[in-house]
């Protein structure tokens, strides 16, 4: 943002505008917040993905009186429907994590492509693409998801598409912003002079030089995607009827909070730790790729 960006264009020796990923990753790995974040992410991913295999009961199996804390054979009691809280918890993270990862991946592919094309072509196409992105930012993500769900219903593919599409403009803007100064540099001119094809210039010349900021953005977007998909579950729009879902669990069990808190507390803490984990990693990466151990805010 300030005038500290290196402006000398010496392709070989100076590091690119944002440090290349190996350097960023190494610097980030030295920060305690990145290690804690990674630990949280791995832990929660293990619970979400491996949980169904170790759950003592089925996803929707009746085990005892509803909303009771000490039911024989259960560790955390039963939920509003007499199902085992622990089993529901172990089953309930998978769809959130998988859908959030898929939608972030989709947004990355689309957003990076749009951002790179806009940065490389400039002019009319750049204006058109970025204006379109600006317009689509004028809509809260959760709202658009709700409008789409109204007609088609909470299908997994629809959630991935909507969250992916609404995340795309955010990634496209970051990519374009990071790629514009790279386009001006000599090695891009050299590649053009050598007659390299346009896609090749985008993917092998530009992309590696914007991967620092992209890594940060990908983590940040994963955090928000998890939040949105969990919020949809909380609002009652999870993908299958009576499926275990951390967001939905919070909603189902909060009425009985004072007698049986586990049904609400376990999933709420799981979502909290998962998003804090990815948030910490994003923050560490942004500090590392800014080259200083200091956050510059989310922009």
């Amino acid at each position, binding site marked *: 943002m300030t005038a500290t960006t290196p402006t000398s264009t010496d392709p070989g020796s100076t590091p690119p505008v944002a440090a290349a990923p190996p350097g960023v990753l190494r610097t980030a790995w030295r920060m305690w917040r990145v290690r804690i974040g990674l630990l949280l992410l791995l832990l929660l991913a293990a619970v979400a993905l491996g949980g169904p295999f170790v759950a003592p009961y089925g996803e929707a199996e009746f085990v005892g009186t509803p909303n009771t804390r000490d039911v024989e054979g259960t560790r955390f009691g039963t939920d509003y429907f007499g199902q085992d809280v622990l089993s529901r918890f172990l089953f309930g993270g998978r769809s959130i994590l998988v859908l959030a990862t898929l939608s972030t991946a989709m947004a990355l592919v689309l957003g990076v492509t749009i951002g790179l094309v806009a940065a490389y072509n400039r002019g009319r196409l750049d204006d058109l693409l970025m204006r379109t992105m600006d317009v689509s930012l004028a809509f809260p993500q959760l*709202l658009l998801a709700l*409008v789409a769900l109204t007609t088609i219903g909470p299908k997994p593919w629809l959630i991935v598409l909507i969250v992916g599409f609404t995340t795309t403009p955010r990634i496209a803007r970051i990519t374009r912003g990071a790629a514009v100064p790279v386009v001006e540099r000599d090695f891009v001119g050299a590649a053009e002079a050598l007659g390299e094809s346009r896609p090749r210039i985008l993917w092998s010349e530009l992309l590696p030089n914007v991967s620092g900021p992209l890594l940060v953005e990908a983590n940040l977007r994963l955090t928000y995607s998890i939040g949105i998909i969990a919020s949809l579950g*909380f609002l009652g729009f999870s993908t299958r009827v009576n499926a275990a879902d951390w967001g939905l669990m919070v909603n189902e069990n*909060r009425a009985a909070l004072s007698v049986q808190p586990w049904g609400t507390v376990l999933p709420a803490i799981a*979502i909290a730790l998962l*998003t804090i984990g990815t*948030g910490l990693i994003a923050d560490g990466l942004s500090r590392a790729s800014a080259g200083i151990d200091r956050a510059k805010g*989310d922009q």
Partner: protein
Amino acid sequence: MGILKLVIRRLAFGVVTLFVVSLAVFILSQALPSDPARAVLGREATEENVAAFREKFGLDQSAVRQYTDWLGGLVSGDPGLSYSNGVPIMDFLGDRLKNSLFLMFAGSLISIPLSLAIGAYAALRRDKLFDNANSVSSLILAAMPEFVVGALLTVLLATNVWQIFPATVRVRPGEQPWSDIDGLVLPLLTLTLAVTPYVSRVVRASMIEVLESDYVEMARLKGLSERTVLWRHALPNAIGPTFQVIALNIAYMAGGVIVVEALFNYPGIGLALRDAVREVNLPVVQFLAMFISLIYVVSNLLADVGTILVTPRLRTRLS
């Protein structure tokens, strides 16, 4: 001259944005795999019922006609009838709109000064204890979805650990939202905790940028007191970004109220939106989507225009 042109261009962009949003909302709600009349009335509805429903809600018209009728109705303040009870939307959503606007207004009243103060103080005490503590706690709070923050607050303050505040808001139809002050504490706290961390980080970043700028450096070199530097040189240049922050805050609230209202059973548009989505009540969903987008677009527009008007640097650069 330059400024006027820029403001007009920004206004035009706002109008175009709303138009595109209305198209998107309309097209998305045409994506229904079956007939909306069937979806609302159920399988056992007779042909006559379906035909009557289609006629009442104008579904027998062409899509283009439906769109222009709907858009014309929105502009003239008549968003149509609700599918579920056939009543004009404004008749039963009027109170909900007022309640939600009150919640957003009260939330902004708390969180805007708070995020400005926290962000500015963190920038002044950069890398000191307050800044670092704030950095970590805001990072954690900003990462969590609103409903998780609210649910954990309920566990902490309303049910299991301490029982200080009620876990739900009790506002009966016809009552004003501020009639249940106790019940408002947790929704407002949740909104504030969800919005403030993100916004205060933006304030901190823009304040640091101002403090590191050439003109503040110059003022310091002239030997002015730190207080004069801060009040006369740094702050005026931080006003522009402040407008952006307020817009950001309001925009964030517009999305956040949906979940917060559902969590605390607050009778506002968020709760209405959730119910309308469940009932496939398309006119209500469309209207609320447009209303929330309008808040979003207008607050961003005002912020941009405000920034253009108050930022000395921008003014000179433009002319």
